[in-house]
């Protein structure tokens, strides 16, 4: 009996531990290092993983470093790797550094709460801090610089007064968060113009009705006339045919562009 209870207790403790470890993994952040381009050796990989784990635990964010040779154009980097973020199902709060060695492009994408630590000024700063290492193809040092600077920014907190034009909030998220605010912020000018036109039209309508009171219907032609037709000819003259090609495509749009999750981005550099 005691043995059975002991086993049950052990199983419960194991389950509890497993659950708590998962919870803490979400709570304290995590990291993902994917070196498809093989830019780092084993020792560098180990050091980077240690740094990323520490940073992840400290910030509660998921730290992602992804190297590849996907040959993505500079203009497409932001949205291509935004889709990558969505497909990999990384954490909501995430900072991602990508080295695409195909066309030698780099990008930093930020997500969730992490977006608000990377103002435009800080994005410019982190890129210029990494630039000397990137120019000399020292990918490891560039990555270390990225991780250290990210940690600095976290410690400094969210900047006040900086601009955040690098952040693009997903339309559907904006709509879902506060539909009223979204509608007002997006269409307030149109609504005001429509409302003013409707208000002015109603006033003009009433004013004219009052001004022209009783002017209508003074003569009823139908009840005061008789028509006896003696001749009726309809002669066909000519025919015109116009042809319009109609598109067979069909579809619709929700109205706003939906280019993946809300995110901040350094842009390709």
């Amino acid at each position, binding site marked *: 009996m005691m043995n059975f209870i002991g086993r049950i207790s052990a199983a419960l403790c194991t389950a509890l531990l497993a659950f708590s470890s998962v919870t803490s993994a979400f709570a304290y952040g995590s990291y993902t290092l994917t070196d498809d381009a093989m830019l780092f050796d084993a020792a560098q990989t180990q050091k980077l993983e240690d740094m990323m784990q520490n940073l992840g635990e400290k910030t509660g964010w998921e730290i992602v470093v992804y190297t590849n040779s996907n040959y993505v154009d500079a203009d497409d980097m932001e949205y291509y790797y935004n889709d990558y973020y969505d497909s990999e199902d990384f954490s909501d709060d995430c900072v991602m550094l990508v080295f695409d060695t195909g066309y030698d492009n780099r990008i930093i994408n930020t997500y969730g709460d992490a977006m608000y630590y990377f103002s435009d000024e800080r994005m410019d700063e982190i890129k210029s801090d990494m630039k000397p290492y990137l120019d000399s193809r020292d990918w490891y040092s560039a990555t270390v610089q990225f991780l250290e600077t990210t940690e600095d920014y976290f410690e400094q907190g969210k900047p006040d007064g900086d601009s955040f034009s690098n952040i693009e909030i997903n339309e559907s998220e904006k*709509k879902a968060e506060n*539909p*009223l605010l*979204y*509608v*007002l912020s997006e*269409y307030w000018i*149109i*609504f*005001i113009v*429509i*409302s*003013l036109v*409707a*208000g*002015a039209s*109603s*006033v003009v309508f*009433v*004013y004219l009705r*009052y*001004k*022209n*009171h*009783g*002017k209508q*219907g*003074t*003569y*009823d*032609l139908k009840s*005061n*006339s*008789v*028509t*006896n*037709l*003696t*001749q*009726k*000819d*309809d*002669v*066909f*003259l*000519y*025919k*015109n*045919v*116009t*042809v*319009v*090609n*109609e*598109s*067979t495509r069909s579809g619709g749009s*929700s*109205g706003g562009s939906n280019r993946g999750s809300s995110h901040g981005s350094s842009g390709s550099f």
Partner: protein
Amino acid sequence: MATVNYKCPNCGGPLKFNPDKQMFSCEYCMSDFEDRIIQQMYAEQEARQSKAEKEENEAYAENSVQNDGDDVEDAVVYTCPSCGAEVVTTASTAATTCFYCQNPVVLGGRLSGKFKPDRVVPFAVSKEKAVEKFIEMCRKKWFLAKGFASKKQFEKLTGIYFPYWYIDTQRQADVTALGNKVRTYRVGSKRYTETSTYRLFRSGNLIIKNVFERALKSQDREMLQGVHPFDLSQAHDFSMSYLSGFQAEKRDLEKDDVYSAVQERIHEYATQLLEDTMTGFSAIRVESYNDKIDLESWNYTLLPVWIVTYKYKGKIYPFAINGQTGKTYGELPTSKGKLAVLFASVTAIVFVLAVLGGMLLL
């Protein structure tokens, strides 16, 4: 100036035509008399005085022709048969009330000879009913200026017979027009619009009745036209007795003065009637119109109108009530405050609806 003064056969008090009863009533002894009785009684007097006035009228008509284009209205003095006072009227006034003793007086000569109307539509709406109709109309007008709809405004409401020309015409008319028939169909991804053009010819005998035009230039044309329609089937052969108790104007616009305007309107009506027979066409463009008049009659008709001119915030508003049907006509003053409230309310409601609609469409 000779006058006719209709007096009660019972007490000698002034007789007035009563629109409610469609009879002549004495306000003193409360007697009522059918119109044919009064007309018989006064037929001889009307005829005698009309004859005396005829020459005067003709002289006036000639004078009018000579002074054609002048804006000066001739003032005419007459003697009230009841109190003997001298009263001044305009040259077109045919019936009025003595300013001193308030007795109704008909200036018989003004409506005799060639100026004798062919028919008259008697008042069917009394002054009290006219005011009632006006107040009732005002109740439905939420944006009227405050104070406008008071009975005090309408104490000066005056019943006036206004002169009109009524024209009945029978003519042969023909119209040539171009008309389109449009057919749309689809083959695969192509949409075809086939427009067939036809030359349309219509010819027929048209009868157009009761085309009207004012015969008094001194009054606002829009008002005199806007107070229509009248039911001419209720018209009586003209008798001066119907004017007793009301004011009346004699015509100062002759047939020639309004002929071209009337013909233009008849052309429009005739074209419209023939166009209405061109069914099944989506667009009709009239190219030519011709007509030949078979018959045309012009009737000089007096129509009853209650009229008042009121001043509101420095602006003068004429207002008329059809004396037969009670239809109201005239510009109504609006309250700027109420219009501002309307503007704000509609703007706010539309804004809220637009926002809600926008949210639903998300």
